[in-house]
């Protein structure tokens, strides 16, 4: 599929998700108590991409706390643990998680425990301890917990997982905004940006906005070429290298 075609599919899927979310919202009593949007719905990774910031802004119909949850596309991840074998550190044990978001960020206007209880956090997967990663049941629970926290630690080190409590700022009582940072190594795909309005410890309104992270321009063409036509990509790489080597040899022969 061409890149434009893929983008269209992603957008169409996002639109569909939006429609569904809208339908659900309309069916409940707490429709439209919170409205939020992003400064951009497409993060374009081009050759000069070094990370970017997206502004999320919105309004509520009155007092309340806001939690923003950004979740990237979910993929399987293998976590490996090194052990010292014969004096050197070698990957020994591993655990697999099937549903790991490539990116996960939570922003709130004040510390979570001040306005919401555990059951709600778990239900909406707010906060790193409540993130569901879909582990394969093959290890003892305490072992699994070790691998789980290692996964999260590695993602945090890569700047892909984070919690910024107090990063949602209110302008007056109703207008709020926050900046969401996406580093250069952000994975591509369809993201979900969820804005939740919380009153008296309960979620009273929620809105989901899709966000697409996609490679564009030259780097997208290279990536698509390498993925879709690996054999031809390899040939092109070899021919390019032969030409470059020849050229270099010819140029420096004169010098």
């Amino acid at each position, binding site marked *: 599929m061409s890149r434009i075609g893929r983008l269209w599919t992603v957008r169409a899927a996002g639109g569909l998700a939006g429609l569904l979310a809208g339908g659900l919202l309309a069916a409940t009593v707490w429709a439209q108590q919170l409205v939020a949007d992003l400064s951009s719905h497409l993060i374009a990774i081009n*050759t*000069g991409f070094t990370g970017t910031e997206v502004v999320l802004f919105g309004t509520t119909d009155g007092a309340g706390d806001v939690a923003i949850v950004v979740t990237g596309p979910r993929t399987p991840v293998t976590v490996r643990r090194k052990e*010292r074998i014969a004096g050197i550190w070698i990957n020994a044990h591993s655990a697999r998680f099937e549903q790991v978001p*490539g990116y996960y960020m939570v922003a709130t206007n004040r510390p979570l425990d001040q306005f919401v209880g555990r059951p709600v956090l778990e239900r909406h997967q707010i906060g790193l301890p409540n993130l569901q990663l879909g582990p394969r049941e093959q290890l003892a629970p305490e072992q699994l917990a070790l691998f789980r926290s290692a996964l999260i630690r*590695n993602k945090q080190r890569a700047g892909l997982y984070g919690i910024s409590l107090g990063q949602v700022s209110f302008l007056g009582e109703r207008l709020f905004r926050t900046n969401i940072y996406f580093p250069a190594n952000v994975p591509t795909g369809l993201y979900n940006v969820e804005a939740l309005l919380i009153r008296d410890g309960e979620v009273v309104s929620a809105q989901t906005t899709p966000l697409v992270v996609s490679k564009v321009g030259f780097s997208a063409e290279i990536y698509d070429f390498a993925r879709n036509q690996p054999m031809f990509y390899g040939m092109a*790489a070899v021919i390019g290298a*032969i030409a470059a080597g020849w050229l270099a040899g010819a140029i420096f022969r004169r010098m």
Partner: protein
Amino acid sequence: MQVYLPIAEMSVNALLVLGMGGLVGFLSGMFGVGGGFLMTPLLIFIGVPPAVAVGTQANQLVAASVSGVLAHWRRGNVDVKLGVVMLMGGMVGTVAGVWIFSMLQRIGQIDIAITLSYVFFLGTIGTMMMVEASRALIRRRAPTAKRGKLHRHMWLHGLPLKMRFQRSKLYISALLPAGIGAIGGMLVAIMGIGGGFMLVPAMIYLLNMPTGLVAGTSLFQIIFTTAMATLLQAATNQTVDVMLALLLLIGGVVGAQFGTKAGGKLRGEQARLLLASLVVAVALKLAFDLVVEPNDVFTISTRLP
């Protein structure tokens, strides 16, 4: 200036990568080696995934060996027949190497395999070179040293499938150059190096090839094994980043020109001793990293199996 690498999926400083290419190119021009053994560890050091470093390095080496072989070709220093025989083995070695590579990647042991092969090969060859070069330096001071026999017979020369190589004035079993080529091909696939530092001594000491033909013929062979490795790495492991290869290439070509000029001022034994120290230093650094406890014993990988 930051550049996004589409396959490595990371952003790097273009000047840093150009500088690395230039530095390694300088050293390879000075010592007449490919420099892959330095570049792969450097790439891993700046955060490029080891698999991408190895795959991209193979691509970059195609260009480096093409420009290198041109000079030898013009002087007629390439034994094409011997090169083609080596190549037969090289192809088999490369295919086997890429297969081993993707298998190791699947079971999560590719990083350790790359590092261990580096420590082993660099450590062995580096030490051997060091001993040889220091001996040569000592011999130079004591000019009465005896001259060795010109040709030695080993069991290796009793192998079947004898072939005549007119250009090199050799009559040896075709299995020998093919076997050396196969090991070279394996090195390209697993370590991302041309393998010149291993092929050259093997061709001199095992095949007894005329020294003048060795560099050109090994480079000739390396063009094809690296091309093959690039193709297979791209097709099976998708680890060739052409953007990264381009940056390394530009830096490498420029660096090599200056390196060649600087190398002309060095005496042969001194150059070899310096190179040997460099090789041993890289091996020691890698060995040290294997032994010392990592900051985090856990690592994650998102690549699909």
